[in-house]
């Protein structure tokens, strides 16, 4: 059985814990990650030569970060680790990777996709201006490069990351002009019973709020962003939002970090031909998985935030569960008691996840109010008005059809950042449920692929 060819995509919490279990079972997996170092999103490592401490970099999660990095170091000799390697396609039970412009086809018996999540974004008029970042990008600038995205930064959107990244900016000494949350305090209060499923995380969250208030950061809830102001030359100069009472306010700033929680990166699951189901709670299509991460395609497993957004701890559990599922499918023994305990723990996390979804909901209704001149697809510079035109005048009520007519989702990001909002705009204009709008079909490459790439046989 040592011959079983297993590939893991993603060296974040899910991928590393998955590798750990497989190595313990005597398998030597290939682990590919497009990043320069292991750690994934949350436990992202700083570049060599930078020397901020664990507490500085990871705050309350310093110990978990250290533990994950140590596990990874201990596995180095037992896995085939390939950093700076993008998994760009899956075909005929081979994973196609590219590194330094060399593409390789890696045959696999089992594939575990731990691709993580990226920001979920709702457009606002002016968000294409230089100086508007996603929350994730704002955090990466800080974690990786020790840079802030501006001198006076407004954080807008909703979700736990909104507060987390703002607090990290405050701690790093950056000036946070304000936090503008589209969700209301009331929603958070109502979600408390579910959020209480993970007391430690809840307490961390509350202490984040104290840090922010202590630093005098203005926090406004129940808002709706109206416009990000600025010019092509100088980028962002301010933001206008509507308060709960309908009044409009303007703030001066030179950068905006925008995000509405995160969404799984599902292109590899799509390329592996996994089935997707509509998730009514979060209003998005997600690959179908069983409780341990089996997809609908035999031998293809999905773990971590790339399958369901459970956060870093949940990703570690999901990585292990997927590894055990894989071993079980190979007819190998699995530690059932330990697995059942982790399944239960995962169940608790799922309750917390639901709490987050309710406390920080995706503001679907904003799509309906987006002015016609607001850009929806930034890659192709397509406005909400143009998207509505293809719905109303050309009858395009389905996502791929609307894309074919309008180019929304046809650019570099292939709809990863505009797809969800685009679907909401279409659904509203067509007067149909967003589920009926469907989802953009994924195609290779997962990210842009250089024409100078050459194929190499291993």
């Amino acid at each position, binding site marked *: 059985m040592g011959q079983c060819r297993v590939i893991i995509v993603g060296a974040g919490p899910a991928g590393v814990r998955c590798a750990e279990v497989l190595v313990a079972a005597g398998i030597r997996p290939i682990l590919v990650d497009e990043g320069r170092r292991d750690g994934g999103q949350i436990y992202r490592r700083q570049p060599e030569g930078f020397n901020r401490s664990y507490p500085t970099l990871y705050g309350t999660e310093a110990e978990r970060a250290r533990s994950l990095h140590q596990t990874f170091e201990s596995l180095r000799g037992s896995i085939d680790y390939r950093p700076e390697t993008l998994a760009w396609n899956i075909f005929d039970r081979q994973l196609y990777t590219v590194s330094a412009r060399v593409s390789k086809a890696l045959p696999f018996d089992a594939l575990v996709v731990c691709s993580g999540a990226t920001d979920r974004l709702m457009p606002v008029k002016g968000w294409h201006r230089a100086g508007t970042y996603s929350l994730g990008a704002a955090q990466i600038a800080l974690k990786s490069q020790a840079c802030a995205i501006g001198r006076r930064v407004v954080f807008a959107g909703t979700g736990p990351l909104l507060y987390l990244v703002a607090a990290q900016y405050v701690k790093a000494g950056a000036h946070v002009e304000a936090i503008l949350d589209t969700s209301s305090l009331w929603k958070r209060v109502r979600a408390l019973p579910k959020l209480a499923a993970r007391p430690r995380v809840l307490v961390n969250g509350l202490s984040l709020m104290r840090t922010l208030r202590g630093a005098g950061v203005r926090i406004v809830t129940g808002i709706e962003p109206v416009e990000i102001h600025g010019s092509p030359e100088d980028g962002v100069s301010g933001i206008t939002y509507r308060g709960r009472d309908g009044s409009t306010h303007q703030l001066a700033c030179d950068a905006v970090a925008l995000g509405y929680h995160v969404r799984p990166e599902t292109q590899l699951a799509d390329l592996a031909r996994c089935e997707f189901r509509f998730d009514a709670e979060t209003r998005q299509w997600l690959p179908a998985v069983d409780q341990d991460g089996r997809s609908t395609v035999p031998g293809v497993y999905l773990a971590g935030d790339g399958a369901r957004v459970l956060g870093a701890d949940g990703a570690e559990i999901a990585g292990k569960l997927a590894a055990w599922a894989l071993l079980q499918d190979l007819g190998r023994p699995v530690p059932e008691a330990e697995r059942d305990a982790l399944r239960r723990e995962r169940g608790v996390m799922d309750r917390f996840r639901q709490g987050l979804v309710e406390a920080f909901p995706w503001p679907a209704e904003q799509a309906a109010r987006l002015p016609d001149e607001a850009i929806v697809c930034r890659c*192709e510079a397509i406005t909400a008005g143009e998207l509505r035109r293809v719905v109303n005048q050309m009858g395009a009520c389905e996502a791929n059809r609307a894309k074919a007519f309008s180019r929304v989702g046809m650019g*570099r990001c292939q709809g990863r950042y505009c797809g969800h909002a685009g679907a909401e705009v279409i659904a509203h204009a067509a007067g149909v449920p967003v589920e009926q709008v469907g989802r953009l079909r994924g195609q290779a490459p997962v990210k842009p692929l*250089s024409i100078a790439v050459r194929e190499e046989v291993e």
Partner: protein
Amino acid sequence: MNARKADVIIVGGGIMGAATAFFLRKRGMSVILLERGLIGQQASGVNFGNVRRMGRPIEQLPLANRSRETWLKFKELFGDDVELLLNGHLRVGFTPAHEERMAKYAQDAKDFGLDMQMMGAKALRERFPYLGPEITAGCYAPHDGHANPRLAAPIIGRAAVREGAQVFENTEIVSVEKDGEDFRMTAADDRTFRAPVALITAGAWGDRISAKFGEPVPMIAKGPQMCVTEPVPYAIGPTIGAIADVFEQVVFFRQVARGNIVIGGGGHEPVDLENRRAYVNPHRTLYKLKNAPRVVPAFNHLNIIRVWSGIEGYMEDSSPAMGPSARVPGLYYAFGFSGEGFQLGPGVGDVMAELIHTGATTTPIEQYHIGRFAKQAMQAA
């Protein structure tokens, strides 16, 4: 349920079906157009977009020319812009044999208005300085061009509706019978449609229906392989196709108005007709990416952002089944365009409407009669 009735029922709403519906309405006949998915969602909506005459068989040029007339009046006729760019078509070759092939074609086709010009290496490089050093000869057809396939058939379909055609999308026809004087079509959800005349424009699925009427054809469905780069400043001009001795080495490309370069080639891949999925084999993509910079070395500085394919019916003799049935009065076919039907689409619609309305065509299409396959089969037997 009462059957819906019309003078003509068309099965298959690709560019062929949509255009025929439009032109039949122009001739005053009532039309029902039935499409399993959405208009122009299959080959007609995902093809490379070449509106090229150069390289087509000489006997196809009258039909291609008739189609060209329609392309030139596209907006006027169908009411919307299809991003038609008439920047010419350039064919390039790497060897003296390629040059000879191009020169012979230019000679054979000289009476058909393509105005082809042979170009040597030096002239080519002066006019198209981005071409690679291996290219030794070219042939330029200044009046050919390309258009946006995602828009074309849907625009024609909407125009047909405006003209009074009844278009039913999401209507899969599961049985086609001749029942007395009328054809009766039944959809998957049991709706029925009747007409004394039926036209089958079901693309790669057309052979299934012709076979039911006792007219099987030697056709296989395959998926040509496409990819597209990120947008870059406009620089290429004509659509360019490179000749190769090995089919898989053929590459062709065009730059769309937005700036992206669409690159086709690398051979064909099997398709899933049942689930209507056409896949892109990464080996073919990589092989194409290796060959494309031989034509334009600067391609090596670009990235591709998406690949795709589509389902196309290829006849054994690379020619469509187009014209009346050899067996069933009132039945007509126009399918199996073998990788070259996008340019022909508007012309095929015009000709099929003429044929159905008047019983004859002013453009010769006898060579595409479906009866040729039965004759071949008899001779072989």
